[in-house]
């Protein structure tokens, strides 16, 4: 290393002022694509050197070389790289073929460098814009990734409009810490927090104390990013690839690059989708008959039933509440183009979607402007700006302890209950519940409104360049700022708000959040290539990230008339949460490439943060990887049916910070009789808390068969979380319920197999298919604290248990009175299999994506509540016992017997995630109709989740009462049901 460095320094001095002195031969030429259209921006490099240039607007280039012959390497994103031997200086004409395998696309390996996929030592997943958003218009970015990335488990928390997803890359990263990957858009660290709205829990009492809770099902804010603006997504799934992100990289990193303008004609793309959504799996209604009722005990209900039946007024309330077909409109306009120096991309989109429940929906507008500018050959800058304005009406669902959420109310609603308003709009009280769900839907508000700016800038300057080496400076800065205002209004005329019903005469709440992420980074990158084609890429840099959040919630009860301002009421309570955190890190990495045959990387990241006990203690995260392109060696038989084989191994470490504020035991404030007081919190702080460390080893190979007609990627990983952070349950007699601790170790082991096939490729017909198969297993390998439970509603209903030697995500519960807890299930799927297909026949394209998740259990409490409310559709069937109906059986055998087993259900599914059929009107036809004005007109019909096969007794096995972060996924309590979408799309280019 020292020698290398010395030599580099020498080169710097030797060549700094002598650029291009030796140039002797002047080469010129043109690069075109298969159809003869000139390709601008193609990179041309003299092989084995860093001498090079780019094609201009017309695909033309000019290059001076020392001597002939030389080998020129032509490369451009999306095209196969081509090498050409040049022995004279006559004009060169080169045609590049479009890349089919993605082997030439670049993947990031450092904070400021990237390499071609075929040389990567990690299994970095990429999703292109075509895969992401072109089959069917997605609702949110994270939802659009579902089923497309090997090794991920993406789960929709509810069907509420506006999103709410959790993304787990290679199993659980952390039990209590952050589990969600870091999102980086054009170099800007994007916030993906969910801010629960004040006021909901005040009414639902789902979590004790009335404070906002994860059960309120807030949107996670990555939903703001418009999938249509995205050019490419790279997913670093674990520490071995993400070590360069240090303390924020353990849960993986999703690197998003948005679209950029290209030199050439200014293009305007317009697309409009219209469609609707509807409930996937309605549960049906119990078939009430006179025999359902006990003539003595249920006399009043019996009379009500007979009256309703005779009047033909038996209502399917599930259909009334969830039967809405929500209208969807998705408009996208983009303008892109550029000249020799400057190119731009401008995107404009508006998305409106109504939910399957009346008065729910989302309205989101998005403006983007990306500008790239080259000052000269040595300096280029890019700027990206994004403004988002969104408004989501989320409904009122999930767990409650007051009978007020729409979901819980429905479980108590019988077809003969009369809930409809009179002619003046007055709703009757629910005869069997504390809230009338129709009234709640009509009158209540749960709105999240967001204004968000994301601005990033990037500068790249070549400090010097010679034949064999160059030195670049890369500087990057970005800010993501959003302000979210959540409004929750329960007007005083709601049944459960009326004073005579024990209500508090109306609740109005406003929660305002200002959140800012800023990040700055600067790197130096040095490339050096020796004469025998061994290249070194050295980079070193500094990063600084700042995070701040300020959430203020105000809840007012006892409202004045229909006023909703928070000062228009008798009782006002407030809460505030602040977060301020600064991280500082450095990063150094060395990459070796010997003739594209042997590739190796070593690197280290050092991080310190105000979130640690000692803010100036550095935590170091090393990484190293190696890959061998066996097929590039001379001994490889070029005629072998295996045309490409690359074994690879990678190791890396990354961290996860403790939850902000873990260091402190902070007193809460209380009030009694007008006297303010201080009380201990449930969670005890821990001044010696440390980040948890994830160590990941990944080994695998990439292979191509029959000239890459068939490609196979195999990866095995072992991802170990060391000193994982837990909110350990401590003996309640300490006065605390929990404490932040470094609790032990657990590991995830998994296998990812990806098989791509270019089955057919003729002029009229082509068929590409990709199979992804992956599985993950976890185990707690060391536990410093006693076995503990979390994330559920107790042993008699099933909950999670962290136990040494067992799966992290196991579900336990009792199976009878006084029985010890036993394992009842596990949320980890046995495996997942996705099958993506693209067929093209002449001008028709058919794409579909099947997603099979096998195994993985949920805790389903929706059916329990339906049984308990006597409304389950199959209540009167006799599936379990010929003498006892299902509803009674399930209650007696489950709840009353202290048996949690019936609530733990297999959450397997097979679903047609996406399907799209598209017809492209031939350009020749368009030309005859419109001249040269219009091109690329596509007409399509597409859908999401159109076919869903599962044997799960509720709306959808994809669900989470407790939101996205943390361990407790797959717990279901009367959620907003999920929906399927059908859309018609028309797009054109001008």
């Amino acid at each position, binding site marked *: 290393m020292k020698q290398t460095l010395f030599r580099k320094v020498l080169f710097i001095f030797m060549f700094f002022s002598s650029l291009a002195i030796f140039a002797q031969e002047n080469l010129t030429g043109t690069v075109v694509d298969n159809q003869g259209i000139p390709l601008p921006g193609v990179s041309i490099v003299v092989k084995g050197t860093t001498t090079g240039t780019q094609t201009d607007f017309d695909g033309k280039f000019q290059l001076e070389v020392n001597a002939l012959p030389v080998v020129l390497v032509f490369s451009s994103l999306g095209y196969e790289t081509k090498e050409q031997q040049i022995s004279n200086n006559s004009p060169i004409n080169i045609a590049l073929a479009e890349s089919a395998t993605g082997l030439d696309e670049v993947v990031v390996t450092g904070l400021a460098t990237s390499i071609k996929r075929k040389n990567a030592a990690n299994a970095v997943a990429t999703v292109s814009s075509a895969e992401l958003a072109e089959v069917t218009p997605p609702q949110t970015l994270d939802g659009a990734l579902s089923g497309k990335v090997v090794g991920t488990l993406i789960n929709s928390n509810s069907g509420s409009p506006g999103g709410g997803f959790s993304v787990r890359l290679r199993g659980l990263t952390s039990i209590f810490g952050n589990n969600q990957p870091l999102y980086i858009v054009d170099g800007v660290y994007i916030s993906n927090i969910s801010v629960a709205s004040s006021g909901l829990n005040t009414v639902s009492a789902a979590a004790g104390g009335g404070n906002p809770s994860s059960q309120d099902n807030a949107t996670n804010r990555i939903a703001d990013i418009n999938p249509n603006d995205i050019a490419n997504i790279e997913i670093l799934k674990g520490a071995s690839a993400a070590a360069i992100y240090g303390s924020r990289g353990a849960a993986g990193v999703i690197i998003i690059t948005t679209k950029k303008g290209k030199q050439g004609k200014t293009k305007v793309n317009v697309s409009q989708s219209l469609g609707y959504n509807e409930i996937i799996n309605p549960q049906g209604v119990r078939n009430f008959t006179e025999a359902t009722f006990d003539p003595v*005990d249920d006399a009043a209900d019996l009379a009500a039933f007979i009256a309703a039946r005779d009047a033909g007024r038996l209502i399917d309330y599930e259909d009334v509440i969830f039967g809405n077909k929500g209208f969807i409109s998705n408009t996208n306009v983009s303008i892109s183009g550029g000249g020799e120096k400057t190119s731009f991309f401008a995107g404009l989109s508006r998305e409106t979607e109504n939910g399957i429940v009346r008065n729910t929906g989302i309205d989101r507008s998005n403006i983007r402007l990306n500008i790239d500018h080259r000052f000269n050959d040595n300096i280029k800058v890019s700027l990206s700006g994004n403004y988002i304005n969104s408004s989501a009406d989320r409904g009122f669902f999930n*767990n409650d*302890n*007051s*009978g007020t959420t729409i979901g819980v109310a429905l479980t*108590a609603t019988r077809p003969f209950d009369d809930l409809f308003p009179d002619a003046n709009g007055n709703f009757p009280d*629910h*005869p*069997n519940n504390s809230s009338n769900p129709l009234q709640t839907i009509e009158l209540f508000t749960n709105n999240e409104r967001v204004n968000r700016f994301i601005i990033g800038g990037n500068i790249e300057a070549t400090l010097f360049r010679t034949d064999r080496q160059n030195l670049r400076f890369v500087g990057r800065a970005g800010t993501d700022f959003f302000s979210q205002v959540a409004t929750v209004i329960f007007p005083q005329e709601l049944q459960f708000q009326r004073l005579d019903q*024990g209500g*508090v005469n109306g609740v109005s709440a406003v929660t305002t959040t200002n959140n800012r992420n800023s990040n700055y980074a*600067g790197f130096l990158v040095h490339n050096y290539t020796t004469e025998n084609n061994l290249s070194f890429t050295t980079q070193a840099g500094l990063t*600084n990230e700042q995070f701040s959040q300020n959430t203020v919630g105000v809840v007012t009860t*006892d409202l004045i008339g229909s006023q909703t301002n928070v000062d228009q009421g008798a*009782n*006002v*309570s407030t809460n505030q949460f*602040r977060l*301020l*955190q*600064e991280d500082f890190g450095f990063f150094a990495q060395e990459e070796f490439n010997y003739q594209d045959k042997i590739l190796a990387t070593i690197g280290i990241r050092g991080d310190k943060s*105000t979130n640690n006990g*000692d*803010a100036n203690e550095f935590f170091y995260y090393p990484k190293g990887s190696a890959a061998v392109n066996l097929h590039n060696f001379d001994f490889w038989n070029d005629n072998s049916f295996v045309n490409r084989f690359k074994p690879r191994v990678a190791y890396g470490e990354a961290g996860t910070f403790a939850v902000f*504020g873990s*260091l402190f*035991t*902070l*007193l809460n*404030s*209380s*009030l*009694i*009789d007008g*006297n*303010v*007081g*201080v*009380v*201990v*919190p*449930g969670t005890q702080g821990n001044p010696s808390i440390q980040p948890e460390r994830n160590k990941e080893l990944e080994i695998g190979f990439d292979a191509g068969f029959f000239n890459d007609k068939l490609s196979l990627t195999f990866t095995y990983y072992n991802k170990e979380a060391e000193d994982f952070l837990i909110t350990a349950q*401590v*003996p*309640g*007699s*300490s*006065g605390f319920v929990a404490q932040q601790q470094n609790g032990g170790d657990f590991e995830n082991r998994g296998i990812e197999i990806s098989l791509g096939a270019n089955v057919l490729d003729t002029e009229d017909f082509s068929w590409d298919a990709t199979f992804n198969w992956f599985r993950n297993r976890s185990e707690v390998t060391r536990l410093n604290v*006693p076995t503990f439970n979390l994330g559920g509603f*107790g*042993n*008699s209903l099933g909950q999670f248990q962290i136990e040494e030697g067992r799966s992290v995500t196991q579900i336990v519960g*009792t199976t009878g*009175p006084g029985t010890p807890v036993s394992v009842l299930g596990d949320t980890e799927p046995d495996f997942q299999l996705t099958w993506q297909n693209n067929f093209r026949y002449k001008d028709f394209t058919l794409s579909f994506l099947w997603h099979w998740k096998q195994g993985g259990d949920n805790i389903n409490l929706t059916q329990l509540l339906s049984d*308990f409310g006597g409304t389950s559709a199959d209540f009167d069937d006799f599936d379990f016992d010929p003498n006892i109906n299902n509803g009674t059986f399930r*209650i007696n055998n489950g*709840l*009353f*017997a*202290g048996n949690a087993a019936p609530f733990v259900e297999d959450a397997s599914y097979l679903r047609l995630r996406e399907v799209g059929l598209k017809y492209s009107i031939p350009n020749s036809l368009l030309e005859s109709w419109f001249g040269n004005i219009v091109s690329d007109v596509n007409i399509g019909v597409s859908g999401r989740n159109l076919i869903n096969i599962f044997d799960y007794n509720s709306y959808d096995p994809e669900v989470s009462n407790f939101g996205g972060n943390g361990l407790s996924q797959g717990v279901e309590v009367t959620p907003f049901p999920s929906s399927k979408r059908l859309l018609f799309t028309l797009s054109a280019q001008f």
Partner: protein
Amino acid sequence: MILGVLLFSSCDLEDADSLNGLSTDAISSNLSRAELPQAISGILSDMRVGLATQIDVQSIFGREYYFFTGSDPRFEADVVTANLDNNTFYTTTPWNARYATIRNINLALQGLTNTTADFSNQEIAAIRGVLNTLLAHELLMVNNNQFSNGIRIDVADPDNLGPFVNETEALTEIFSLLEAGATDLAAAGDSFPFPLSSGYDGFDTPAGFLQFNRGLTARVEAYRGNYPNVITLLNNSFMDMGGDLRTGVYHTFSLTGADLPNPLFIALNQTASVRVSHPSFTDDAEAGDTRLDKVVLRNMPITFSELTGTHDVFIYQSNVDNVPIMRNEELILLFAEANMATNGTAAIDAINVIRNAAGLANYTGGTSAQELEDEILFQRRYSLFGESHRWVDVRRFNRLNELPNDRTTDNVPEAVPVPFNENQ
């Protein structure tokens, strides 16, 4: 690189501050005069947390009422069938809430030891007297639930908790705490250096608070069967045979800001979330007992999983009504109990105070200790309905098997299990 090195060395991060609240150390390391009222108010406020779960569960155990709620069926299942889990809310909520209050008290006691504020000796005695009395009360609440399973007394150091002690030992420790509190209160001067809530009106001086302390001590001594001492203690308490039976010490509630509403209030004739008296409450009552106004006949009976109620529990008529901690009525009944074996006349006189107040004629039954015990338990059942006494009462007289079970699956437990997280 020079730029980098400069940047690098200038990037010293400052240790983070606790942005979102006062650290607990602030109280325990040095209790200031300004923090004192906030610490006391915090304790009084925290004593109410988990109260509804504690009272509901004990009232269901004692077959005083049922709590039907569509949102959590375990009130009709586990709690009524006595299939009690050691890690479910009915076990953990009261335990955690009481010990959280105890942590608050211990923080204040530690802060008092370490204080550099200019508290006089009388003021220190006053603060310590109140804190120890409240500490004893909270421990007693835990002990009532846990009974034979034992509790921890020494929890001053959260990282080094003391052992579990059995019920007898626990009561002895609680008794000593109350005695220590009484000694302090007697030496505490004429006024407190902090305000109490209006629930302590009449008891908000050292002398007044001492009367509450003596009443509480009398309850503990009655639980221990030390009846002669009960009589002495009651005479130093606020027991008043001619006074308002409701005089006493209360939890207060309001809807203001972070204050709590009365969690035991439910409007009449609700359908989803209701507390209905056990049928035996109205069936067994003597005709004309005005204490039956604690329940109100529903428009329609309500049945949940084969349990039926005809009357709503309506002890609290609004969501800001006070909830008693100790009332004169209980003290008079304790006086009757302490005398039943040794001074039947005194016992019957006390019983008659209660009966007459309830609109009933004087007691005419037998005067044997056993018969008086029956009568006193009967009166306690109606006088202290829904105040967490009956289950404890029938248990200490070994009469748990007299409580009714309406379904074949139902049972009355003797004690609540030790929470799972105690790692016992």
